[in-house]
């Protein structure tokens, strides 16, 4: 299995997001396989939370659907096991700190290792609170993905010191969700990161269109969440072809 760093070494990579259990657990397995076959280089799996504070209405609704379907941490790992029978695409989790905290940081990381989930994004675990989790993540050789925003400023060197796997550059202020227009701010952030580190950079938040896929040529990857969740919401039981078409189109734009 390649590490996230190796996977995302070159430019033009695509990271697709889906919430585990939306529309149901079997379809999650199917859609992760479809996304990997369509060219997704990494798949980000959302573990539903009742109050996803960094997420907009699209992902909030998906989380709610997954919870209505009985999403639990145990059920998520069960689903990951099924995914692993079918694809070795690198996986990262996205969830909120309470989910991991209640499961137990160490137990959670041990299971990530056992099921080969390489990294985790915890939007509500900033630099100041990472100590305990990060030490354990290193022990279990898992990546705690660091987020960098236009507000980070002089926090950047400290954030990069904690970084492994890749760095998640937040393209714009606010919460997740598709946006008609995105500023080029992320490109400046990538330049700033490059002054300190050669770590791979993925840009996310608001990316849904081919023009936006072309907008961040310096990034190693783009992360697309809400647009994929929207496709699954529109075609809950037969999203496969639509996901494939979308990912191929986006990757072509990235690599044009």
């Amino acid at each position, binding site marked *: 299995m390649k590490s996230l760093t190796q996977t995302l070494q070159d430019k033009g990579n695509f990271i697709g997001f889906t919430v585990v259990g939306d529309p149901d657990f079997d379809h999650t397995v199917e859609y992760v396989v479809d996304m990997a076959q369509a060219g997704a280089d990494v798949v980000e799996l959302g573990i539903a939370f009742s109050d996803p*504070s960094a997420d907009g*209405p699209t992902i909030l609704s998906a989380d709610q659907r997954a*919870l209505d379907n009985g999403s639990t941490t145990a059920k998520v790992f069960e689903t990951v096991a099924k995914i692993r029978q079918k694809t070795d695409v690198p996986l990262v989790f996205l969830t909120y700190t309470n989910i991991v905290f209640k499961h137990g940081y160490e137990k959670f990381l041990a299971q990530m290792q056992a099921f080969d989930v390489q990294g985790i994004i915890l939007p509500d675990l900033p630099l*100041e609170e990472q100590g305990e989790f990060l030490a354990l993540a290193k022990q279990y050789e898992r990546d705690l993905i660091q987020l960098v925003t236009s*507000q980070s400023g002089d926090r950047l060197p400290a954030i990069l010191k904690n970084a492994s796997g890749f760095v998640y550059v937040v393209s714009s202020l606010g919460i997740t969700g598709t946006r008609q227009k995105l500023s080029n701010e992320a490109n400046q952030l990538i330049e700033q990161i490059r002054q300190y580190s050669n770590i791979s950079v993925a840009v996310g938040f608001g990316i849904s269109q081919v023009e936006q896929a072309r907008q961040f040529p310096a990034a190693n990857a783009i992360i697309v969440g809400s647009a994929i969740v929207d496709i699954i919401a529109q075609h809950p039981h037969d999203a496969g072809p639509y996901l494939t078409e979308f990912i191929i189109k986006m990757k072509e734009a990235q690599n044009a």
Partner: protein
Amino acid sequence: MTNDQRYFGQYGGQFIPELLMPAVNEVAEAFHHYRQDPDFQSELKDLLINYANRPSLLYHAKNMSKDLGGAQIYLKREDLNHTGAHKINNVLGQALIAKKMGKTRLIAETGAGQHGVATATAAALFDMECEIFMGKEDTDRQALNVYRMELLGAKVNAVTTGTQVLKDAVNATFQDWTQRIDDTFYVLGSAVGPYPFPEMVKYFQSVISEEARQQFLDQTGRLPDAVLACVGGGSNAIGSFANFVDDPEVQLIGVEAAGKGVDTDQTAATMARGSIGIFHGMKSEFLQSSDGQIDPVYSISAGLDYPGIGPEHAYLRDIDRAQYVPATDDEAVEAFEYIAKQEGIIAAIESSHALAYAMKLAPTMRPDQQIMVTLSGRGDKDVAAIARYKGVDLHE
């Protein structure tokens, strides 16, 4: 982490998105600067005295005391403050910091509407823009306060996500802040959230116990035996406790909303039923599933209808300095009616939870002992809802 000023024992911290960390740290820096600044202190003092009507009275409720036949009950009358609740103490402090930081827009969550009204009031006074986030269910049950905020010039957003109550209003306010950071200050209304908010809210609400301590010494020659306050997030309670924490002879009791009972799923009794978790920027006690999903909660009181509690309360309980007890909807409504008839005071349904426990506690104590109950707000806002609860059909 015991030496970390952001923590109370194991509780507290700053569990918020990286996007907001610089803004929150900027607030912390400003708070520590201005709390030492004599000009800020005299401006705030002037506002508290001449605008908010402080000090609030410490009133000996003789009728209740006699009728209950035990300890003497004293009411700390935060209901007599301008805007009718303790919320103004904190809002004036935070809004003044915001103004000095050069912020031009205040945002706030509100449950019962009292904190929203106080924030809208400060925004009007300081000529600032104001937006309030309130759960859709609460805009319905506290419609009068919605109109009051609008009269004061605030925009009120009804939050339709999640359970549509206080918890969701807090989520929405944090989300608004991530979209507009530069000119905006989040005036958090309870002793919850990421550091420095629990510390800052306590600091501004401590005026309650600072006054009360002196008033007890002046009026009775000694300290109270017990201090009671209702607890949702816990701002009036932490303000009521703060200046008595170092007096071990003063019992500190927080009263939380049991809703239809702590053994039902219609409750907001975090201390009775919760467990440690991480939510709304803090590590504290929360009502949640074993898997970490935040529970929907219920109380007749929109102000106590919250699945968590401020981190310092969790700490005070752990070190056995304060205790937390539940009061049900029924008990609170009974206390609401009781104090109206006994003392001629219509108390907020939130505060009525504290009164309900005082009614149980007083008869177990001697007449030479004394209890302070913080009357955190007035109950005019609750009259219509209580009438409905009692099955009375009101027409205005």
